[in-house]
């Protein structure tokens, strides 16, 4: 409970901080709101005075002056209203936009461990619906402030003439606010239930249409028709439930202000007869009541919205308050030139879930050496790969590149010298060319093509509809898994790093095509320190040396043949990997 309060408070602080830079607009909005309120309060007074003058038929000259004044205030009101509105929306939209940019920038820099835990959908909600909640409340705050001012003015004016009349005329109006709140609270669950029924109905439609061959083949049309009719009945019932509520509340919400008018006619009328009020005042009061309807409903909206917005802002704050765990050291050491000599010295690592993956790992890759790491599922192979570019930091020990602990380098400098190809390749909705030249968008085309050739990707890229300019990714041309991996390899090749890491990077490549890539990879790996995480013996064969990882340590090292000959565990692990692969592919062995 306390944690939630604290989160909400942090949320409000965030909203305040985000609206802070908008202070000129806030000031302008408030000033415009004040002008707007004054003009609005004055207009009915002038109208009332004009009517009274007309009755007394004094002189039409004065009526004329009053009308001109009214129009002047009308223009003032309209102008101020426009400014107020623009300011309110601008502040809100600016706040939303800035917070979204801030959130995105922060997310881009947050460490892998954070992204391992977070779900994309939830982060999307932070940047989308949560920010909209904040937007809504920021809009409402200045609008409501002016509305409150209006209400205050109306109350003061009416009370100054007659307290009883003010009470009679305005007493019921707060109920309007209450009724609107109750209505929205009651109808929300019904509307949600209705949405659910509607989606159930569309579920029946969808499956009937996608299974139309079954429906037709078995003559199940009647059955599906009945299922749909049942859903349609449920929708009908829910809709009527919502209609019943609307039928109760909508007329009530319209009725309350009318009752105020009745009070003004009745009690105000008698005040006129007693000579304590002018007929023109009756007119003015009528106009005032009409003026209060929206402000009252808006206050209710603001209260509901404020609670939603502070919760939303609290959630956003939580993300923004998470510091990147992998950051530059205070005084980064420049990386000296070197062959890419890579050492793991007594490295231990555990994931946030607590599972200890590496336990005092000792491993040395000489500059230019290609080492394959083999281990059973969960043995920590991938973790070894991810510690090099500091996707995670070691819990104990250190990872040393060309004599420098990777934590002493700036993250950018380190990652500039480490290229990694992930097992699950991610391509961006962009051209093939830009996907390959990802690390260096300005790379000349010859380099891009060379990288593609080395990755064995040039052939199929050239055959794409627009060649290297073909847009791929989620919204573009879809490639096979193997093709995607080859583009990812090209990406790493173009990056031209000291240390290349291939994390199961050819797993989706069709075995019949694999030999093409192998030849190309051999060229890429020449004179480059390479760490290969591999399953297939063919890929393992690319390495100069194989290291067997077991229980978080390197337990054996040597050539593939040596290990096969000497290590029982190595044979076991390889056999199990083969079994797993066969099972995953579902093909009979």
């Amino acid at each position: 409970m306390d944690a939630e309060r604290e989160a909400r408070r942090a949320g409000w602080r965030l909203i305040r901080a985000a609206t802070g830079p908008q202070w000129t607009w806030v000031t302008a909005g408030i000033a415009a709101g004040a002008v707007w309120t004054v003009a609005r309060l004055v207009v009915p007074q002038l109208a009332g005075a004009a009517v009274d003058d007309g009755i007394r038929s004094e002189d039409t000259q004065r009526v004329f002056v009053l009308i001109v004044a009214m129009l002047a205030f009308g223009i003032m009101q309209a102008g101020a209203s426009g400014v107020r509105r623009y300011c309110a929306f601008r502040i809100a939209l600016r706040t939303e936009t800035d917070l979204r940019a801030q959130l995105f920038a922060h997310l881009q820099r947050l460490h892998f461990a954070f992204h391992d835990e977070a779900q994309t959908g939830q982060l999307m909600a932070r940047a989308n619906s949560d920010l909209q909640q904040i937007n809504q409340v920021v809009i409402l705050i200045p609008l409501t402030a002016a509305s409150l001012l209006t209400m205050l003015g109306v109350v003061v004016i009416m009370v100054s003439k007659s307290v009883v009349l003010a009470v009679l005329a305005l007493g019921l109006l707060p109920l309007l606010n209450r009724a609107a709140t109750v209505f929205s609270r009651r109808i929300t669950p019904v509307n949600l239930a209705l949405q659910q029924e509607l989606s159930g109905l569309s579920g029946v439609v969808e499956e009937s249409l996608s299974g139309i061959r079954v429906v037709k083949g078995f003559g199940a049309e009647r059955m599906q028709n009945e299922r749909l009719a049942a859903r349609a009945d449920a929708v009908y019932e829910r809709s009527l439930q919502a209609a019943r509520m609307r039928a109760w509340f909508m007329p009530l919400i319209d009725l309350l202000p009318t009752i105020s008018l009745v009070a003004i006619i009745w009690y105000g009328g008698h005040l006129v007869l007693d000579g304590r009020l002018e007929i023109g005042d009756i007119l003015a009061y009528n106009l005032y009541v009409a003026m209060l309807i929206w402000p009252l409903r808006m206050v209710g909206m603001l209260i509901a919205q404020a609670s939603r917005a502070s919760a939303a802002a609290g959630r956003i704050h939580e993300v923004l308050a998470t510091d990147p765990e992998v950051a530059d050291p205070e005084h980064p050491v420049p990386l000296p030139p070197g062959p890419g000599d890579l050492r793991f010295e007594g490295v231990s690592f555990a994931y946030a879930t607590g599972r200890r993956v590496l336990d005092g790992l000792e491993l040395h890759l000489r500059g230019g050496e290609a080492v394959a790491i083999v281990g059973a599922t969960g043995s920590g192979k991938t973790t070894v790969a991810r510690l090099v570019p500091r996707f995670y930091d070691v819990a104990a020990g250190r990872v040393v590149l060309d004599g420098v602990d990777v934590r002493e380098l700036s993250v950018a400098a380190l990652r500039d010298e480490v290229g990694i190809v992930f097992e699950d390749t991610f391509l961006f909705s962009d051209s093939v060319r830009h996907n390959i030249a990802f690390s260096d968008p300005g790379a000349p085309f010859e380099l891009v093509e060379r990288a593609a050739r080395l990755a064995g990707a040039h052939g199929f890229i050239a055959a794409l509809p627009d060649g290297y300019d073909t847009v791929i990714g989620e919204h573009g041309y879809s490639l096979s898994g193997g093709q995607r991996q080859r583009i990812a390899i090209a990406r790493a090749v173009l990056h031209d790093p000291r240390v290349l890491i291939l994390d199961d990077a050819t797993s989706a490549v069709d075995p019949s095509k694999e030999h093409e890539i192998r030849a190309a990879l051999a060229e890429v790996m020449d004179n480059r320190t390479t760490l290969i995480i591999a399953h297939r013996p063919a890929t393992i064969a690319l390495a100069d040396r194989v290291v067997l990882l077991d229980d978080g340590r390197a337990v054996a090292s040597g050539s593939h043949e040596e290990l096969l000959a000497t290590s029982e565990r190595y044979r076991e692990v390889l056999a199990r990997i083969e079994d797993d692969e066969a099972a995953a592919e579902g093909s009979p062995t």
Partner: protein
Amino acid sequence: MRGGWIESGPLDEESRIDRAAARRVVLRLARMLRPQRRAVLVATGLLVVQTAALLAGPLIVRWGVDAGLVGRNGRVVNLAALAYLVVALLGAGFGRAVIWSVSRTGEQFLRGLRTRVFRHLTGLDLGFFEREKTGRLVARMTSDIDALQELVSQGLVMFVQNVLIFVGTLVVITLLSWELTLCTIVIVPPLLAASIWFRNRSNSAYLQVRDSISSNLSTLQEGLEGVRVVQAYGREGGFIERFEATNEAQYEANIETVRIATRYFPIVEFTGVLGIAVVVGVGSVLVGNDALEVGTVLAFVLYLSNLFEPIQQLSQLYNTLQSAGAALAKIFGLLDTPNSVPERPGAVDLPPSGALEVAGVTFAYGGGPPDTDGVEHPLGPTVLDAVSITVAPGERVALVGPTGAGKSTLAKLMARFYDPLAGDVSYGGVSLRDATRVSLRERIVVVPQEGFLFAGTLRDNIRVGDPDADDARIEAAVDALGLREHFESLPEGLDTEVRERGSRLSAGEKQLVSLARAALADPTVLVLDEATSNLDPGTELEVERALEALTEGRTVVVVAHRLSTAARCDRVAVVDDGRILELGSHDELVALGGRYATLFAAWTRSA
């Protein structure tokens, strides 16, 4: 002073409708509402009374002011206040009745429309579903009818009420003082013009907002899903810049709508003041000249909002009406799609048993009516060319041949998924064209290639074969195929929810469900389309055994992809180029040394 402000979404090209089409839609809608005309009349009556109550208020105020205040009569003031209260309460009461009766009538109509459209849809021939995209058909039943739902639940009452109030107010104030009305009415055209301008401008601006949001969201999503690659290559800066560009574009699109609103709403506010100024100014002068009573001026001021609000609201409702009209037009288009394999009037039941006879059948796809987009589908190449074959009761016939040879089409014609262009298909001497739909599916059942599962339990899915079957019959059908043990090994046996996570059935298991359906349907003729893909080895054997049990004692036509299946049948028909090239038992055809023998030889070698 009426209910809320209706927010309708922006209108894109898809949801527009022209005047002529709108007229047709409205006329047809009126015809469709005929059975509910009593309810419609009642609702209209209630609406008129409610509007009258609303319009009476200012008249009472006028009387109270003139006879009570100016005439200095306290009793009149009391009476006027009381009358106003009564009228207001009546108005609220009738308002409640209006919302309720319109909603009920509208929802009844929608319920009827939903079931009717769906019934029509499921009744259409298979050719229709091959022409149309599923997504579009789903949209007819969902987003299009939802657009109508929005109209029924919010827009309709508001629309009619606003029209009534506007017209009613105009009539009343003209009767009160035509001079003052004339002066007031001058304000209406500029407000109308501004409202129409606003509607059009904000519509295109909101479409822009919609696009900018979706492109910003996809940049966002990509940045999040690809964050590991971005970090691995140190490209955070570039991505942040890229996101800032789409983020700012979203801001710009949004602020544009604000700018448009900033121009419009002040005009509305000023019009309000201008109206009051005109009424009060002109009115006061007229009162001063004793040409008008002061109460009339008050009443006019109260009536002003009745003139202005409808204009704003109607211009907003326009979008809701447009999209509802466009949706209805699309729905009507669907309802007008004829069924190309209809049940003819006076259709007869198929006899309980008999031979399935295909006589001189010619067929080509296409040639039907244009699809709901108006795209023509001309008659394609001939798929079957004067094909004849008779399947005796209890006989198993396999159709083999290369892909596209016409064997699946022949099977579909045997079940009357289509009608032949020439020739006839009959069962027990009765043409399938003359058969009732129900008896057709009782005799001839088609088991499709892939076992499609509906949401629900395994039991519900088997029941598709015969909706009236009780649990005992379902279990009997499962037993008959020897599948009880398999199904009961699932987490909750036959009550397992098939679409739930964790209880995903394998392709083979889906086939088993499909076969169990067929066993429950218990037809005399089975048309089977054999699965092309390999099933999981575990269930493959079971599928084969169940198939054996299912086909026992039935007439079977199987589209065979594996020659092992063909070899088990009584006769094999080799179909190619729309003709039956060879027909005979497996052994005969192998001995014949023709196409089948070649195929068989190739197959035995590869196996």
